[in-house]
């Protein structure tokens, strides 16, 4: 049994899936974020001034890019895996001699690739509005990949536990979007009153956005090492939980 071929098959299938439907997967973030940059960055941002020495436009670019990475890595896995469950073609993988970690890796890889591809699209759109000189390429790319992995894993768990299409829209709408907006995309956490600063520290997205912002423009409210530690912690926890669900067959086997 050649596991490399099996893994490659799952990853390729996942990538072709979202590329085949690019008007639904790659085009909308380009339009939405162009509007963000125009309205918040250009029209309103010019009146706000600077945050931590960066222009408002430069300040919000990293957050908007990472917000897109988060939502699309999540959306890719949750919709793809749940559709497979719904159509029962997940059974193809369950019957085949593929270990659980490989099923997980395949879907998560697909989510990471889509998240990063959307991130690149949004970054290119941002270049229409501002110039970005990347502060630290390694940190930027690493935190982008790790963040995409966290939310691809979260999407996988959501898809496994979901029993209807409603269940796969609840988390993105009522958890992910608020946490992203409150994760310091448009503001510095230092601007919040004391108690809200403390509350914000419980939001994992805050750490990821700040690490990414540091990588891109050299500005952060949070210790970078702590950001990596928290992101890594989430990856380990979510991976173990996903493998537990697959091993037990919860949501996918009788």
């Amino acid at each position, binding site marked *: *049994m*050649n*596991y*490399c*071929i*099996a893994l*490659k*098959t*799952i990853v390729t*299938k996942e990538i072709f899936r979202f590329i085949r439907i690019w008007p639904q997967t790659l085009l909308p973030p380009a339009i939405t974020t162009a509007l963000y940059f125009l309205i918040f960055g250009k029209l309103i941002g010019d009146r706000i001034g600077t945050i931590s020495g960066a222009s408002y436009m430069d300040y919000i670019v990293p957050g908007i890019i990472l917000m897109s990475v988060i939502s699309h890595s999540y959306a890719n896995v949750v919709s793809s895996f749940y559709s*497979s469950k719904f*159509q*029962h*073609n997940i*059974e*193809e*993988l*369950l*019957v*085949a*001699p*593929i*270990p659980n970690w490989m099923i997980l890796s395949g879907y998560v890889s697909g989510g990471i690739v889509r998240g990063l591809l959307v991130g690149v699209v949004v970054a290119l759109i941002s270049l229409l509005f501002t110039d970005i000189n990347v502060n630290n390429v390694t940190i930027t790319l690493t935190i982008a990949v790790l963040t995409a992995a966290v939310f691809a894993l979260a999407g996988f768990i959501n898809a496994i536990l979901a029993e209807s299409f409603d269940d796969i829209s609840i988390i993105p709408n009522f958890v992910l979007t608020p946490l992203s907006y409150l994760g310091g995309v448009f503001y510095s956490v230092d601007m919040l009153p004391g108690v809200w600063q403390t509350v914000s520290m419980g939001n994992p997205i805050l750490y990821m956005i700040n690490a990414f912002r540091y990588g891109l423009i050299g500005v952060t409210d949070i210790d970078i090492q702590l950001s990596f530690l928290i992101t890594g912690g989430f990856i380990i926890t979510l991976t173990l939980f996903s493998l537990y669900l697959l091993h*037990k*067959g919860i949501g996918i*086997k*009788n």
Partner: protein
Amino acid sequence: MNALSLRNLKKTYNNGFEALKGIDLEVEAGDFFALLGPNGAGKSTVIGIISSLVNASSGSVSIFGHDLRREQAKAKSCLGLVPQEVNFNQFDTVKNILLNQAGYYGTPRKLALQRTEYCLKQMDLWDRRDTVSRRLSGGMKRRVMIARALVHAPKLLILDEPTAGVDIEIRRSMWSMMRQVNQQGTTIILTTHYLEEAESLCRNIAIINHGRIVENSDMASLLARLHVEHFILDLARPITVAPVIEGCHIELITDKTLAVAIPKEHGLNKLFSRLTAQNIDVTSLKNKTNRLEQLFMDLIDSNPTGVKR
């Protein structure tokens, strides 16, 4: 070597329903084996456990000598499954469905392409290879599932009601394909509600009822146990009263149709000579039910609790 061995297989679902109460079953390599039973008897649970879609509560499954728990990859590599319901990606092309399936089993691309072509041609689907699968007819979708199950050249093929809902012509052509696959060395386990299908294709049979195997033998021995056969006779001229013939039970269905239950040892010649003596001419004769169907009903009816006999 046995293609499949089940040992004391039990399954109790979360709602407390005991679907399998200790199944022991062996299927020899190369066999064409029928697994029959009424709805809810436990057939799908057995197949689900063999194909890793259902977790067994206890017991063991061995496929070509590989324990499904301890040597999962080796055991699964030997297995191909054609499920009851269409379960491939309806947005994918026929060719991609097979290529992906081959990839899941680690088949190199070049070989996967060759196997895909071979299987699609065998199922008479090669000219549909680039068609998006949801556009196929019901019969074609069933054949895609068989081709998909064969693309990694499994040694054991499980067909779970493969001909359900297809017309007679397609069913007959699928029987021919299944026979061909079996003759090429693939062991086949078939579940079906068409007992004529099982009788025509299978050499050995197990009947499951209420989560237990209530019958397990070769088809010929099982059919030999049928002591009484039921026939429908069409008559040349109308009659008003059913004739009385010793040893036979005869009912008048219409004025020109008789239902006859006749013991095997009685012989049809004797029946016809007695009818002729009573000036009753028979124009045609047919089995009232399929022979296996008769046995199946006898076994299920006489064994409502599923206790092994």
